[in-house]
């Protein structure tokens, strides 16, 4: 699948409201359909993707199968900390002492960046051959539905920050191990999601810059979500505007329909400008794939399945051609 054929970890991020969760769920379904054992991970104890896939509420920190070949887990820092302690400490009693200590709980909550580190540490753990979680089997690929750009980058930066701050000891070692994975293009891919709108594209371009700074990497793929069909041409639009300015047919639905079409044309024009801007800004090395806007909504299992098929098809095409074609192109 495009630049995402081999990586073990796929991080999906972008501006708030662009459909990161939908795209992450669709990607995960596409991987699973391609025969890879896949886990879709959400952070901060959220489970929107699980509900989108029709698998209901997730419960925190529980890996469960939600579709053929696809599992889901909702990560929260508290459980991640507990699991980490149990794994790191030779005696479980010690871990219990720590986990139950109020002082330690406060410390963990107040230490800057620790929540991010624990979250990304768990994501890393999901992507290992030898799982730390008792009884857990390895996955071929982990899809992370990451927070919006800024917070998403903070997540990716956390391991290095801690490795640098700690110098030596288990956290430094662990931090460096995680960082190695995140910065290795063969193991980790970042997918930038945007809609063809000014602010979303601006943020995708900012992600590219921020990612380079944080990990020295570029996104493996950009997804332009919610592309509208370009039904109405510029000449059509001129004709529609002329009718709107003059004698609108008297039927009730005529004006609303004409206005809707004129508006749709303007939307597609913006879409074209912003798609071009994104492609120009990302350059040749980042393939851009378009996903269609679904008038019926994109938050149900059927919609996600449809987008996952689009993604599987288009991402392959873009890998071969070196640049994607939007749904409306």
């Amino acid at each position, binding site marked *: 699948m495009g630049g995402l054929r081999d990586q073990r970890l796929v991080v999906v991020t972008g*501006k708030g409201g662009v459909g990161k969760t939908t795209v992450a769920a669709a990607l995960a379904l596409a991987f699973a359909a391609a025969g890879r054992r896949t886990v879709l991970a959400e952070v901060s104890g959220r489970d929107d993707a699980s509900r989108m896939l029709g698998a209901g509420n997730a419960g925190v920190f529980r890996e469960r199968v939600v579709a053929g070949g696809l599992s889901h887990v909702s990560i929260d820092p508290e459980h991640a900390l507990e699991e980490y302690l149990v794994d790191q400490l030779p005696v479980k009693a010690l871990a219990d002492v720590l986990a139950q200590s109020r*002082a330690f709980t406060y410390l963990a909550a107040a230490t800057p*960046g620790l929540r991010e580190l624990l979250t990304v540490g768990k994501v890393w753990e999901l992507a290992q051959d030898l799982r730390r979680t008792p009884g857990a089997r390895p996955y071929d690929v982990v899809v992370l539905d990451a927070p919006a750009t800024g917070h998403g980058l903070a997540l990716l930066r956390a391991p290095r920050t801690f490795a640098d701050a700690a110098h030596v000891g288990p956290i430094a070692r662990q931090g460096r191990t995680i960082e190695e994975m995140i910065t290795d293009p063969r193991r980790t891919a970042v997918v930038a999601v945007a809609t063809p709108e000014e602010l979303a594209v601006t943020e995708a371009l900012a992600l590219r810059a921020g990612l380079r700074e944080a990990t020295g990497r570029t996104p493996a793929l950009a997804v332009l979500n919610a592309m509208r069909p370009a039904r109405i041409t510029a000449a059509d639009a001129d004709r529609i505007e002329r009718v709107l300015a003059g004698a609108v047919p008297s039927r009730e639905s005529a004006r*609303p329909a004409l*206005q809707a079409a004129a508006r*749709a044309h303007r939307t597609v024009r913006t879409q074209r400008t912003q798609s071009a801007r994104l492609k120009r800004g990302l350059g040749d090395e980042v393939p851009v794939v378009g996903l269609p806007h679904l008038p019926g909504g994109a938050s149900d299992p059927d919609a996600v399945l449809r987008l996952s098929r689009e993604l599987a098809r288009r991402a392959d095409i873009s890998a071969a051609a070196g640049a994607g074609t939007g749904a409306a192109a």
Partner: protein
Amino acid sequence: MTGSVSDRLEGKRICIVAGSGGVGKTTTSAAIAMGLAAEGKRVAVVTIDPAKRLASALGLEQLGNEPHLVDPAVFAAAGLEMRGELWAMMLDAKRTFDDLIERLAPDAESRDEILGNRIYQELSSAVAGSQEFTAIAKLYDLDREGGFDVLVLDTPPSRNALDFLDAPDRLTSFFEGRALKLFLAPTGIAAKVVGRGTGVVFSVLKRVTGVDLLQDLSVFFRALGGIIDGFTERARGVKALLADPGTTFLIVTSPQPEPVEEALFFHGKLAEAGMPFGGLVVNRVTPRAQEAPVDVAAVAADLDDALGASLAKKVAKTYADEQAIAARDAASIVRLARAIGTHDAIIVPLLDGDVHDVEGLLGVHRHLFAGDEERARLLRVAAGVEPAA
């Protein structure tokens, strides 16, 4: 609680605009501030991450981390008379944090120790939560300085709007807790101060974290020790400010399912925390022209003469798609109204073109500041069921 935004904010001196990412919080905040200023008030708006063109239109690119007066000519050129004053600023999280430390540190030495600490540097710039914390710190300062009639705060683009309410607590509860005392005396004495078990905790911690990290943390917390009193006092002040009768939370959402759930969740949390809810703005709504599903063939037939068969069909199809979205949006609004128990959300239609400049602000402003009747008319015009006046 009906009427325009202006009616709903009557008597309020702080308006916090909350909602999940991508719903148009920044534009809404700026449009509200602009509208109140046009009515004659002295208003400051604190924005987090405005679009570039809006930022340059409002002169937000200049440094300083303090509000500055926006040239009224900017609005006059767009046809809006400013009877009051609009002041605007873009929050600089790191700078706000540094200012706070500078003010609270007892002496230059401890100030430099904190500002130079690696953990502090990470905390003040990169960490999720620092924007939430500093936004509210800035709001608190501006309120205390008292130079404005109304403060409008755009909240950070956190995925979970709740982070914003939690942020002050998360960072400050620590200062009142025992963990800090532990770090202020990170030796054997600590065990005696805070009780048995702490010694074990400490040695285990060392083992888990590595010694250097622990030292860095302890330097950080020890340095912060000097400013605890100031910090906890502020934390109390901030909490009180959020619950003040002069403060109100405006929840902004788009009609998409996820932001709607987020808005409902946030509304519940506001009620739980005893914080004032001032109203709901539903942005980017596709205007509904008809209740029944669109009969594509019939609509196409009506437009046939004017447009020709082929274009008429395309137009009818586009209209049907749009009305399907409009129906979903309408259902979202009903769901919001039922769950929140109000039927007076302010609906702002999906506006044409670009809302990221002053013209765009005016477009949003028109809806927010219209009375009930005028707003309903504007929606009918947007839907096309009534021609523009």
